[in-house]
């Protein structure tokens, strides 16, 4: 009888430890490492923009994730602009001269240095996570680029 009780006690103790461990894991769950995540596809900037412009719903369904863990992409294209955002992150827009919209790729504190020697017009390959698609909002009169973040140059 006593051994039965101690078995039940042990079982409960194990379950409590598992539950606590799971809780701690969830609490400290690290953010996804974009650069260590396998890219879903390698795609040309113009093609990516056009996928959103021709069928926004279809492209959104394909690339965005319902919990924010959207697709990691390698985007190829020519550098149209290089700037810095308000957090000091470098931003490269990939866009062909004939296109209305492009792909805006934001680097990170760790990858900012990769942008230093790049020049306008140079073709590059950039890996990052997609946050939103391209869109021309007639109501707001805004041409919105595809937004890629956590970027790094791919050789």
């Amino acid at each position, binding site marked *: 009888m006593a051994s039965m009780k101690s078995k039940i006690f042990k079982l409960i103790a194990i379950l409590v430890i598992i539950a606590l461990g799971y809780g701690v894991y*969830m*609490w400290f*769950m*690290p*953010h*996804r490492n974009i650069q260590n995540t396998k890219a879903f596809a390698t795609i040309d900037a113009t093609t990516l923009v056009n996928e959103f412009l021709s069928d926004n719903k279809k492209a*959104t*369904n394909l690339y*965005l*994730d*319902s*919990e*924010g*863990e*959207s697709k990691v992409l390698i985007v190829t294209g020519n550098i149209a602009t290089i*700037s*810095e*955002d*308000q*957090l000091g*992150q470098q*931003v490269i827009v990939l866009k062909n001269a004939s296109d209305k919209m492009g792909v*805006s790729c*934001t680097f990170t504190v760790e990858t900012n240095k990769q942008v230093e020697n790049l020049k306008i017009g140079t073709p590059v390959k950039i890996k990052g996570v997609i*946050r*939103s*698609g391209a*869109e021309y*909002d007639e*109501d*707001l*009169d*805004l041409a*919105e*680029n595809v*937004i890629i*973040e956590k970027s790094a140059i791919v050789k």
Partner: protein
Amino acid sequence: MKKLVLTLFIAVISIAAFGQNKLSTTSGHVKFFSSTPAEDIEANNYKVISKIIPSTGSVVFSIPMQSFEFEKALMQKHYNSKKFLDTKTFPKSKFKGTITNLTDIDFTKNGTYEAAVTGTLTIHGVSKEVSEKFAITVKDGNITGVTEFDIVLADYGIIFKGGKPSTNISKTVKITSNLNYSKESA
């Protein structure tokens, strides 16, 4: 007479040129902050698109919702999920409004002006009329805009029943935005 015509001509051209000017940014900062006795939650977004047309007083914002970053990965997942902001279905929040006291603001003269902005804010697919103050600072040709206001989540159909989120996320969250605009000709 010739002089007058020429002066008028230059005046018309310069008004037209100024009228074409837009102030825009694609890297504005928006933060939201929620505070409850259980915990404080903060998220930052540096990919906010905004445009002001000084001649008409038009102000627009477009906020890519998946660009909000949280300290904790789990919170970020919850925030994006169908139960909360449902960012896959509603990837952007938008604002379209106008400055109602445009005559009080001189975009060409150094100073800080309090703009009264009225318009429609769309979050989570729900649109609401809002009126907020927008502090516009002009300094040596650089223009920044700062605003801070509260939103009631339930107004935008963001309702959580029971569980941890209902005690850890406040019903009203504070939105702060800080944008550095640059000049862009149309």
